[in-house]
């Protein structure tokens, strides 16, 4: 009886460890259990990312509909390329959807905000969003402000 209790306790201990790891993965690191099967990828070119990183949120009207999967520099045109995975359930993004890099709060993380347009056709896997708006960079804003002040 004593060994049975002990073995039960050890088994429960190891199960707790495994469950802990799963909870940690899902709840804390936000690793989603859904696989890549129900997602599609679209691209967007930006002049300045201003701190947007991989795994950043892609949202529409404040609702998260996907994540940034890859960020790299186009070495021919020297613009930043952002690849994002959008949930298949949001498959009705129009061709003239616009993307902007926004900031959550004053010091919060950067995310991409999408706004739909008026076209009839929809973006498919691998398509590119044409209408983009780069991140606001504080130094550039201050620079512009000073410049316009100096001209007055």
């Amino acid at each position, binding site marked *: 009886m004593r*060994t049975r209790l*002990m*073995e039960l*306790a*050890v088994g429960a*201990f*190891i199960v*707790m*460890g495994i469950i*802990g*790891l799963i*909870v*940690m*993965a899902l*709840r*804390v*690191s*936000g*690793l989603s259990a859904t696989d890549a099967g129900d997602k599609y990828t679209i691209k967007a070119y930006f002049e300045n990312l201003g701190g947007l990183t991989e*795994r*950043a*949120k892609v949202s529409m009207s404040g609702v998260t509909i996907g994540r940034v999967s890859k960020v790299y520099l186009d070495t021919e045109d020297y613009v930043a390329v952002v690849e994002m995975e959008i949930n298949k359930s949001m498959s009705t993004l129009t061709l003239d959807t616009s993307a902007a890099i926004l900031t959550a*709060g*004053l*010091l*919060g*993380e950067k995310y991409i905000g999408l706004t739909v347009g008026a076209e009839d056709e929809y973006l498919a896997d691998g398509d590119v969003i044409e209408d983009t708006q780069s991140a606001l960079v504080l130094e550039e804003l201050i620079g512009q402000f000073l410049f316009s002040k100096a001209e007055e």
Partner: protein
Amino acid sequence: MLKLIDKILDSIQALGNASLGRLQALGRAGVFLLSSLMWGGPGSAGFGDLVKQIYSIGVRSLSIIIVAGFFVGMVLGLQGYTILSDFGSEAALGTMVSLTLLRELGPVVTALLFAGRAGSALTAEIGLMKATEQISAMEMMGVDPLKRIITPRLWAGFISMPILALLFSLVGIWGGAYVGINMLGVDEGAYWGNMQASVEFYDDIIKGLIKSLVFGLVVTWIAVYQGFDSIPTSEGISKATTQTVVVASLAVLGLDFVLTAIMLGSI
């Protein structure tokens, strides 16, 4: 003049003697670890033994780890809130609490508690076995004490530590959430959302677990070695137990710096 030279020579000799002693102990400990692990997998001395050791090392440390984790998490919640609210970014509380726990406090505090709770018990147990000549009796019967006593304990520590550290961090994150959300009024969505946006499964959770695996091995190694190498008297065992806690704690803190430096890749 000659006396002075003699004195200098004496002190140099003492230094050399001490270093050789240290080096010898280190070598003995290394041979000891290798020859215990040579016996192979965790079940090599019988699975029952391993289960028994995981029970006494891991399961029975659970209560202290969970209580400590909850309090550490709550303190992090309070302190973090006070600091972050100066910058108006209380929303980052979840990020701060979870990253602090997963990367540093989880593995390190668990290892320190483990050294005090399980390491000292291991040393005292093995030391007493030696004092009551159970170990010599085993040798006489042709049973290898390393295989019979040390191997299952090393594996038990190695298996238990990451589980304990994981549960410590998990409970701590909930403790931080409890204080932050229920007592201080941080937005619940911001707490979990910002945490999920900034915690990486591999970079934060898995690397933390790797740290605690290393700590588990080192702490149990030091504990069983100190017990096995102790002078078999009551005084020797008490000295060995103290040594275990001191050496294991210092080793954990020192190794933590090295591991962090390697993992962050800045050295």
